[in-house]
């Protein structure tokens, strides 16, 4: 199970060692297999509502997954399956949530766009563009105030850099020297519109860093080792009181924006070019070139394949949520009554 991935020695800023690299490999396989399964289940009409896949962007989540301390805080978007799983949240409840079942991560009440698992540090997935960036500042503030050494990490897309909340959060994090890492996953598109067409600068995050007194950081988001290095360095900076970082990771989503979108607005050549840079096979080949046995990687893949099967069984076996859940937990007293 993925939980094991978060054990072992804490991250060090810098290059990942063999063990960390294998963990990143495994995580990427998990995210990939999980989301492919989610897509299959969507085609079978079992996934309700919408869902947004990170296929092609797994290296970013995987690198942060291994680089973060187990009590650090993750803030994800509606495209949050990968970031949730990467923190060790088990696949079964996540898949069950997508299916709208009672054994889902939030008993079906949140759905794909709002995955949350506080016990794993996943403080939520947010479906309103940019909103989670100031919120990430909030838990960074509490960590700073309470002296816990925790760091908040907020993931978001290129298109998100044009909304007001982004601007407010970045300035706020800087002036309070908050331990927060902002990670822009630049996959070139907002929903169907190319971000470069509606953005005043070439690098939507990195070219804005100086507006908040921050250095410009661009990294290959399809390279887990490079991602790890920048992740661990920024986490360490934050943890040591050095304040926020803004990272722009270049990547690409293999599919459309959400389940309804075939992604046809993208030039064939561009898609082909990025498919050729698929982080999974690239990393697999690199690890083998670096001396890892093919059989070890194949073993991981087989393992994860079984885990996805088990998660699917778990999810499908979940009950449909009942009426008791409907009026539960609006308030801290567990209820929904607005009167007395």
């Amino acid at each position: 199970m993925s939980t094991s991935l978060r054990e072992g020695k804490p991250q060090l800023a810098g290059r990942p060692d063999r063990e960390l690299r294998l963990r990143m490999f495994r995580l990427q396989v998990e995210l990939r297999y999980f989301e492919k399964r989610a897509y299959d289940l969507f085609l079978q009409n079992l996934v309700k509502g919408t869902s947004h896949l990170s296929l092609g962007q797994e290296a970013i989540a995987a690198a942060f997954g291994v680089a973060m301390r187990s009590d650090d805080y993750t803030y994800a978007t509606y495209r949050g399956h990968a970031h949730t799983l990467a923190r060790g949240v088990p696949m079964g409840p996540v898949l069950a949530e997508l299916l709208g079942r009672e054994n889902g991560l939030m008993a079906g009440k949140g759905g794909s766009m709002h995955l949350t698992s506080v016990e794993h540090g996943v403080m939520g997935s947010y479906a309103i563009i940019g909103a989670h960036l100031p919120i990430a500042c909030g838990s960074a503030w509490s960590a700073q105030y309470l002296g816990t050494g925790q760091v908040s990490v907020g993931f978001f897309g290129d298109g998100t850099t044009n909304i007001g909340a982004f601007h407010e959060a970045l300035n706020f994090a800087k002036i309070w020297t908050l331990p927060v890492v902002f990670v822009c996953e630049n996959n070139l598109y907002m929903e169907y519109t190319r971000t470069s067409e509606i953005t005043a600068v070439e690098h939507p995050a990195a070219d804005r860093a100086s507006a908040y007194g921050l250095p410009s950081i661009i990294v290959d988001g399809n390279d887990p080792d490079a991602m790890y290095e920048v992740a661990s360095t920024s986490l360490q900076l934050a943890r040591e009181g050095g304040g926020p970082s803004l990272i722009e990771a270049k990547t690409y989503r293999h599919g459309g924006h959400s389940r309804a979108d075939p992604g046809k607005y993208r030039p064939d050549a561009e898609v082909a070019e990025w498919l050729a840079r698929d982080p999974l096979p690239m990393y697999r080949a690199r690890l083998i070139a670096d001396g890892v046995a093919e059989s070890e990687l194949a073993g991981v893949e087989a393992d994860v394949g079984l885990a996805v099967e088990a998660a699917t069984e778990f999810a499908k076996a979940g009950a449909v949520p009942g009426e008791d859940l409907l009026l539960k937990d609006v308030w801290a007293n567990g209820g929904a009554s607005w009167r007395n």
Partner: protein
Amino acid sequence: MAELTYRDAIARGIAQEMRRDHNVVFLGEDVAAAGGVFKTTVGLLDEFGPLRVRDTPISEQAILGAAMGAAMTGLRPIAEIMFSDFFAVCWDIVANEIAKSRYMTNGQVSFPLVIRSGNGGGLRFGAQHSQSVENWAMMIPGLKVVVPATPLDVIGLLAAAIRDPDPVIFLEAKALYSTKGEVPDGEIVDELGTAKVVREGSDATIVALGTMVARALESANQLSEAGVECTVLDLRSLVPLDTQTLLAEVSKTGRMFTVEENPRLCGWGGELVSIVTEEVFFDLDGPPVRITTPHIPLPAADALEDMAIPSVERITATIQKAMNS
């Protein structure tokens, strides 16, 4: 006469008005090249070109600010806010600026603009993409609020909204986008502030809006089998509110039931109850009753969402119980 989806009616309504008035322009996220995330604006870019149909960044304050500034200097913009939940990120421009500026300036400026938005639940999108925000808009003085229930009304009310000199919040029921209806050929222009009696009955009046209209009708048919004959009133617009028709219909039957998709507190149903009780109290044979989504955020799971939003069964059961007591 053709059969058209509610979805396609949007583009038809916009196109009708863009053809007749060059100052009608349209902007929003993914509305041009992609034809809208709900495919409601397909074809507009091709017909009207990139100067009149414009894709924007994810900057709702800029979208509505631009619409506002353009409206007060000669254009008639239509702006799309993709999901009505996103009004929360640009509510200042709507509620504090657009709604108030005519009054504050003693009538120096006008806002002939329409803000269209996908509204309501039923698609299992969860609490941040499913809200019914008609009451958000209704409570702000200076905004007109329209919610069409049929493809025909989409075109006619959209045309009326675009021609209207005041700002109109035009809420499209997302759950209705794929529903179909007959629509005549040629220009269609309706009138804001007119409710429609879509069924007549003598025992009770059911007042509904948007997605709830079809449910109210179905419920009325069920009730009819049980011997209760209901009038169904499709409000169509909350501001201006057609209180003439409302009061007349409620007075006729002596009972009012409102069916609201929005969560209960401060919903339009409460406003209607207060109007009806204040103005035709002595025509009432029994208490007005509101049927609403409970006062909770909307859950995502299909089973839960279906329990939350007023269903035909709940409408029927509530009315039956009230009429029998």
